């Protein structure tokens, strides 16, 4: 059976290779997937990883970038740990990818996963979002410095976020406080069950400020809004409806924070396969279909290839563990 389908593959592949031969130099070494690619979202449907997996799979299919199907698979549990444990067992499998973001570093640092980013093959970083610091529209604080001055006076001031202590929102605001000259652990961080939940509580005046993803906040800002942004963690101002929001750096606090998302693969994925996916994703970012989806979802392209992404992940781990140890949340 195998030899038969391989033969059949060759019959199909040859003319195709001839057709595409102009654009890409085909050589015998080049790897292409021989079956459907399992693209895992280590969470339930509906979240950030799931959206990335489904969007990428759809764009690749619509733009016909790969002759194999990208099958979106949800493996929820343990904030990602269940999926990571499964994928870690699948060493060398070139047909298995998963969506990734800071939790792949943070969850293991908190002691909740045996596997961390170094157990997997970095494939590519795709996009990034930034943190945004929000207050109620009628709040007395005009800049992040106003807020931190108030925080010095009254350490009990509550800042809400959309995730557990020691995860992205908390790290982001604790790192900011520390860059502004406060103790990272002095922030009275109140975890809510999501960014939306946190923003509702800010509208109702139950917390003083909220830290959340800039993309998630877009719908809540602008004319007639009950919320106001004090600053964004990007190195430069964002475009679109967030163009009026100053960066932290503009306000004299030298601090940026990325909420990056990318793709990783099973441990020890063959180099040729990594190269194939790198090219595929780089090509995908150029397509109209991707750019339309990206703009609608408020994502910002931030491509890095496998090697750069790997170095970046190591740097992030260092950064996160230093903030976590300031917070007393380092468990590893």
């Amino acid at each position, binding site marked *: 059976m195998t030899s038969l389908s391989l033969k059949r593959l060759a019959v199909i592949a040859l003319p195709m290779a001839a057709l595409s031969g102009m654009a890409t130099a085909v050589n015998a070494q080049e790897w292409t997937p021989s079956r459907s690619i399992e693209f895992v979202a280590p969470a339930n*449907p509906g979240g950030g990883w799931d959206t990335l997996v489904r969007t990428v799979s759809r764009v690749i299919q619509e733009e016909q970038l790969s002759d194999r199907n990208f099958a979106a698979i949800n493996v929820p549990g343990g904030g990602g740990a269940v999926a990571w444990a499964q994928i870690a067992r699948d060493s060398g499998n070139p047909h298995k990818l998963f969506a990734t973001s800071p939790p792949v570093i943070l969850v293991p640092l908190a002691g909740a996963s045996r596997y961390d980013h170094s157990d997997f093959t970095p494939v590519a970083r795709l996009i990034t979002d930034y943190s945004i610091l929000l207050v109620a529209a009628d709040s007395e604080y005009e800049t992040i410095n106003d807020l931190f001055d108030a925080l010095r006076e009254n350490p009990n001031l509550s800042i809400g976020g959309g995730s557990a202590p020691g995860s992205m929102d908390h790290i982001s605001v604790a790192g900011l406080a520390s860059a502004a000259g406060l103790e990272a652990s002095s922030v009275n961080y109140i975890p809510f069950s999501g960014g*939306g939940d946190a923003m509702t509580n800010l509208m109702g005046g139950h917390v003083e400020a909220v830290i959340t993803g800039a993309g998630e906040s877009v719908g809540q800002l602008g004319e007639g809004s009950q919320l106001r942004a004090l600053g964004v963690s990007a190195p430069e101002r964002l475009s679109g409806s967030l163009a009026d929001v100053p960066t932290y750096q503009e306000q004299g606090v030298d601090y940026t924070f990325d909420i990056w998302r990318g793709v990783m693969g099973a441990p020890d994925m063959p180099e040729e396969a990594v190269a194939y996916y790198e090219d595929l994703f780089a090509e995908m970012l150029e397509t109209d279909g991707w750019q339309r989806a990206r703009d609608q979802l408020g994502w910002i392209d931030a491509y890095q290839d496998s090697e750069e992404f790997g170095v970046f992940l190591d740097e992030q781990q260092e950064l996160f563990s230093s903030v976590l140890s300031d917070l007393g949340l380092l468990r590893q």
Partner: protein
Amino acid sequence: MDALNNLMYGFGIALEPINIAYVFAGVFAGTIIGMLPGLGPISALALMIPITFAMEPSSGLILMAGVYYGAIFGGSTSSILLNAPGVAGTVATSFDGYPMAKQGLAGKALAIAAYASFIGGTVSIIFLMLVAPLLSKVAVSFGPAEYFALMVLGLTAVVSLSDKSLVKGLIAAVIGIMISIVGIDLQTGTERFTLGSMHLLDGIDFLVVALGIFALAEVFYMLLRGGGGKEPKRNVIGSLKLSGSEVKQIAGPISRSSILGFFTGVLPGAGATIGSFLGYSMEKRLAKDGDTFGKGNIKGVAAPEAANNAACTGSFVPLLTLGVPGSGTTAVLLGALLVMGVTPGPMMLEQRPDVFWGVIASMYIGNIFLLVLNLPLIPLIAKILDLPRPLLLSLILIFCMIGVYGMSFSVFDLMLLLGFGLMGLGMRLFGFPAAPLILALILGNIMEESMRRALQISGGDWMIFVEKPISLSLLLIALLSLTLPLLKKRRKRPVT
């Protein structure tokens, strides 16, 4: 008469032939998904995102909203027929629906569920249309302290749900709270009662417990009693018709629960499940024949069904006017809307009135479709009870397992299901009521998180719960609902 104009505008959109087709497809798919135990609307909606991407946003939301409320509508079917809740919001329906089915009144129970769902849905669409923008204020006025008070009020229902022995009911409730603690603690990130198992990090899914303790336990119980197929009247579906006095009986519960359910739905995080429990326990307390609740009282079917459908519609208030999802399902809807290029939020009424009013108008149409679709189906679906006992029991087992596995793709959860089935059997044999356990499991998590959040905000000061007017009033109502029955009893005693 602004609302009327807007509604006419909405109907203009919802009555386009293509949108009528989408409403129909949505509610039809939703009903089927709802009927299958365990399989909820979340995964179905997530799978639909790629389909809706290319659609007009109003059409896309019309379709997806149809699946959502269709699933809540259809979820009562398996609760009533099999004691296996189709979706989380219909657990309370099985308390009286299943006993009715056992008494040969399956047809009537299903018909009441359909009428109550229809009325609950329709009443809350009217509310949604008239007061949605105002209600966004109510939704944000609920902070951690207020949620805690609301959950305390909800928990007082344990008293009315534990029919024979209050002590046993309280024990069941404590076990429910203990189950709700399992997993990573959101406030500190600490693992609690996970026994080092990765599979328990996210906690135990409510539906696994509900399916185990109700459906599986029922299967085991029937097996234990030596299922020789001698079940009396098992095969009778009964008439769908309601008598005049029955209509009178359920009119009150349906209208009260519709309103209650709608307001529960408006609060992000509360939703259909809590709404249906609150409706059920409110009616049980108000009813003169409250002690027949749990034994096949028609009001016990009408109240939760009106409440859960009303709550489902109510949950569109925070979604559309604040851009805040109140539940997992509305979170997926929010994601889908963003993908379609619509940003729900305070500005949506002005920017995309077509989506807002189109969806509201489509809900009227969808609810009528659901009623017309479900009523004639009742005799057909209820035929499942005609199956020979061994077949029926195996079918329940299979449905439960598919439902649980389809949720998490985890064999571990299947083991949990089995474990909770055995636990439910034990509880039945020793006379522990299951409903308080389920209620405490649903409320426990939100109650604990809200309490700790509130205390963290106040710097450890417990006064936060009584300083806030909403929180204080809810706590007082909770106190009243606990003490009033005692006072009543005392007053009665000298007479008897």
